[in-house]
C-alpha cells in the first residue's frame, strides 16, 4: 500500500498516482481536471488508492453520513405496516423501509416479529433524495443473510462512533486494538458495524463489563490517532481496569 497521503481541496493529483485502467473506480472527493489527465481533490482528507481494486477515493474522518446503496447500517425499528417495517437510521436521514419478507428464510408465516426500538443490521438497497431509504436483510442473489451476517440484533449494546471510525472498522484499518481485545476478553465478543456511525457489541461470556470495555476502546480509537504500540497499551489498560472491577 502506498504511503498515506493527505490532500486539501484544490490540490492536483498527478496521473501517476491514480489507477489508469479503463475499469477504474474513482470515488468521493476526486474530480477530473478538464485540461489535463490529472485529478483535483475536492475535499480534504486521506487519499486512498487501491491498485488491486483499481479504485481511488478520499476519505474524511468526519462528515455527515449519507446513505448510499450497498452500505451496511444499524437501524432501529419504529413502526410496522402490512408489508414493511419502518426504521430509523439517523436524525437527518429520511425514514427507512425494510420489507417484512427481506429476511433469510422469511415467509408470510415465519417473518420476524420486531418490537419498538429493536435493532436490525441491514444493507441499503436504494437511497434517493426525498424518498424513503430501502433496506434489505438478505443477499438478493443467494437469499441468505451471509456473508454480512444481516438480520435482527438481540442483546448487546450500541455505541455511537464517528462515520470515519466505522469506515475504518469495516476495512480493518488501524484498529488492531479490537483484535487484541477480542483475544484478551473471555469468550471474545461479537461486533456489527453500521456505516451510519453505530457499532453494536455483544459479549456473551464477559457480560456488561466486557461490552463496556469494548465501548471504551472504541471511544479512545475515535478520539486520537493511536499507533500499534499505543493500541496495545490501551488494551492492557482497559483489561487491568476490567479485572480490578
Amino acid at each position, binding site marked *: 500500500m502506498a504511503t498515506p497521503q493527505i490532500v486539501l481541496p484544490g490540490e492536483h493529483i498527478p496521473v501517476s498516482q491514480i489507477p489508469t485502467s479503463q475499469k477504474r473506480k474513482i470515488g468521493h472527493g476526486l474530480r477530473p481536471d478538464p485540461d489535463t489527465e490529472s485529478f483535483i481533490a*475536492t475535499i480534504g482528507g486521506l487519499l486512498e488508492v487501491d491498485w488491486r481494486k483499481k479504485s481511488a477515493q478520499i476519505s474524511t474522518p468526519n462528515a455527515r453520513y449519507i446513505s448510499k446503496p450497498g452500505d451496511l447500517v444499524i437501524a432501529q425499528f419504529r413502526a410496522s405496516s402490512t408489508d414493511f417495517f419502518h426504521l430509523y437510521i439517523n436524525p437527518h436521514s429520511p425514514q427507512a423501509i425494510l420489507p417484512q419478507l427481506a429476511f433469510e428464510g422469511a415467509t408470510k408465516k415465519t417473518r420476524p416479529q420486531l418490537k419498538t426500538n429493536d435493532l436490525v443490521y441491514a444493507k441499503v438497497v436504494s437511497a434517493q433524495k426525498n424518498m424513503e431509504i430501502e433496506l434489505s436483510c438478505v443477499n438478493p442473489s443467494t437469499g441468505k443473510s451471509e456473508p454480512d451476517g444481516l438480520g435482527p440484533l438481540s442483546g448487546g449494546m450500541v455505541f455511537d462512533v464517528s462515520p470515519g471510525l466505522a469506515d475504518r472498522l469495516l476495512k480493518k484499518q488501524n484498529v488492531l486494538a479490537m483484535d487484541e481485545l477480542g483475544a484478551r476478553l473471555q469468550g471474545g465478543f461479537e461486533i456489527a458495524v453500521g456505516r451510519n456511525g453505530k457499532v453494536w457489541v455483544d459479549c456473551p461470556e464477559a457480560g456488561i463489563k466486557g461490552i463496556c470495555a469494548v465501548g471504551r476502546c472504541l471511544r479512545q480509537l475515535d478520539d486520537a490517532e493511536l499507533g500499534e504500540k499505543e493500541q496495545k497499551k490501551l488494551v492492557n489498560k482497559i483489561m487491568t481496569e476490567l479485572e480490578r472491577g
Partner: protein
Amino acid sequence: MALTEPPKAILHTLLKADGSATYTAPKNGYQVVAGVNYPVEVPYRSDEIPESTFIEVNLRPHNGVGMVKERHMEELVTRTLQTIVLGDETPRTMLQITLQVVNVESDESLPGGVKGGGQGETYLDLLASALNAAVLGCVDAGVQMKAIAGAALVGICPDGRMVVGPSVVQRKKCASLHVFAFTSDSQTVLMESEGKFTMDDWKQAERAARSAVLGSVNKQDNGDVTMNGTNITSGSSGNCLLDVIRQALEARVIKGGNR
C-alpha cells in the same frame, strides 16, 4: 513577509456538528468557533437553489447580538464561499455555517485596556478570522470545494510600514486596514479596504497579504511538492495560513498505515 506568530487552527472542536473548527488569529487575536452543517434541508422553499447549494452564514459577536456589522460580514463570507464551494455537487440543499466569536484581543497595557470588535468599529479585523474559521469548518465537514481560501489582515501605519495581522493597539493607529483572501491556486477572492491609502500602498498590502496566506514561495498548481507536508512545509516560510490549515487537517486525519 511572513506572519510573525502563526495563527492556530484546530479541527473538530464541536461534537454534534458535521464539521467544526476553532481558529485563533495571529498574536492571540480573535478566536472564532465555526460549526458547519452540511448538507441539510433548506428551511424555506424559496431559498432553495435548483442547481446549487444555498449557503447560510450566521455570525455571532462575542457579546450582544448580531447587528448591521455582522450582517454585512456574513454577506461577505457567504459570497467568498460561493466562489470556492462546488455547489452543484449537492443541489437543493443548504450549507449552514455558524461562527461564534469566543475571544477578542485586549491590550491591558493602557489603563482600562483596549479592546476591538465594538459595534461602531471596523469590521475588517474580524472578517479575516471569520472567513478562515468558516473555510476550516468546511474542510472538516467534507464540503466539496474547488480550492481552499485564506484571508489575511494587513494594516498600513502612518509612516508607510506594513503590518500583517496587526495587534489591537496597532490597528487603532493604522492609517488604513485591508483584508485580502486568496484561494490555494492563488486567485484573489475578496478584497476589502478601509482608511486613507494610495494605490501603491494597496498593491503593497496585497503582496504582503498574499505571502501571509500562500507563503513566500509561489506554490501554485503543485502536483507533488506539497504532498505529505514533509518536503515543502518545513522548507519554505512554514507558517503561512495554508500550511496552518494543512497541519490542522493532518492532526485530525487518522492514517490507516497497516492493513
